[in-house]
């Protein structure tokens, strides 16, 4: 019970800080919107080929916009040496980590929630046709991005070029998660349900989330204290 309370306390603190400064939200949202707008000029929104790459396009935007949120996750703790105070407190490393994951997850879902309708308008896609399945894919893939991204945010927090290092390290790790999300999102945006071979991608997404969450929780103390 105390573990859960500490996790939620960390998540609430991160969300409150972010909603007051809006540093990551503004950067991430404006980046996502600009990319969606620029790609809509580059591709013909009425063409079938554009709709065939819609899943990949959407997840590229989410992944890059997510990196801007994840970069701030541990970096905001560096001011005034707040990270030392958190590590020195009796809060278990996994509670600290999961609190930060929850905050990043909420922010990432918020960005996705804003971007999806705009994506629908720019690319002429009726994205609500398979809404429950699409929501499931978004929830699962965003959790994977948040977990892996938060671990690497902790790993790179003391690096001089952390804004560059985080995406370089995190995207190769996210390839299975992003591939599964892209493979599932494209047919869902076209109004097709999850069926046949698509279940294998869904299982991969679930497996990725479970394996990386477990690994991160086990290794986070080593990451934080060294």
């Amino acid at each position: 019970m105390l573990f859960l309370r500490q996790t939620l306390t960390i998540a609430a603190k991160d969300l409150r800080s972010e909603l007051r400064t809006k540093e990551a939200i503004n950067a991430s949202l404006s980046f996502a919107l600009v990319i969606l707008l620029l790609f809509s000029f580059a591709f013909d929104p009425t063409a079938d080929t554009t709709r065939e790459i819609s899943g990949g396009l959407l997840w590229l935007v989410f992944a890059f916009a997510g990196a801007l949120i994840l970069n701030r996750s541990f970096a905001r703790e560096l001011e005034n040496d707040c990270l030392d105070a958190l590590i020195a407190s009796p809060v278990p490393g996994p509670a600290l980590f999961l609190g930060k994951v929850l905050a990043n997850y909420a922010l990432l879902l918020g960005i996705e929630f804003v971007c999806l309708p705009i994506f629908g308008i720019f690319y002429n896609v009726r994205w609500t046709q398979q809404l429950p399945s699409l929501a499931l894919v978004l929830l699962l893939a965003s959790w994977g991005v948040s977990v892996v991204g938060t671990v690497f945010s902790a790993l790179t927090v003391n690096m001089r070029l952390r804004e560059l290092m985080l995406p370089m390290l995190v995207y190769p790790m996210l390839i299975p998660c992003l591939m599964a999300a892209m493979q599932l999102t494209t047919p869902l945006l076209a109004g097709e349900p999850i069926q046949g071979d698509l279940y294998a991608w869904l299982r991969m997404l679930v497996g990725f989330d479970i394996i990386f969450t477990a690994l991160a929780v086990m290794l986070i103390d080593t990451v934080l204290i060294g």
Partner: protein
Amino acid sequence: MRALAVEGVWKFYGDYPALREIRFDVEPGQCVALLGRNGAGKTTLLRILAGLARPSKGAVKVFEKDSLDRATRGQIGILGHGIAIYDELSAYENLRLFAGLYGIEQPDKWAMHWLERTGLERVKDGLVREFSRGMRQRLAVARAFLHNPKLLMLDEPFTSLDDRAIALLQGLLRESLAAGGTVIMSTHQLREALELATNVVLINRGKLAHTGARTQEMLDDPGYLYRTYGEA
């Protein structure tokens, strides 16, 4: 039961040994001045004692338990170089946050208690980023004492504090010691440290140069310690 036991601690940065076979004990109720020149290894040692870094070799026990043990950490209060408070939260929210993390019962009451003790109750809802330097320092002191720690670890506690914060901190340290608490403070400001200290640990280039009780000679002439045990 020893408040702190440092058992043959080494710390390497690459091949360079920043700390070499540091070994000393601290009994409950003692106030230890951790002294040494700049770069002697005081901050590195204090970070290891506080569980913020792992020793390369050796071990640190706090109340006979591993210093990295989470339950043990609840008994330690830390005031480091940074103030460790969040600029974008209010004074009250900061103390409420740490009260929650330390699992303090009645967190609201204790947050308000420490705001009153540090004279910040009138600005409790003000964001820390709008505070003056002195107010931020007093809030940092409140954060360190909030959970009534049995062992306080202070890194250069008097550096950059204003007069009011120094008086507040000295008063709180005396109170804590009178109540049986233990204090370890790393500093190279000899006079302020030796006035409070019951014991002295001198680090010289990563090695333990001297450990023992603070004597009258040290108080009369703070340079005596370096001349006798360290580099002149």
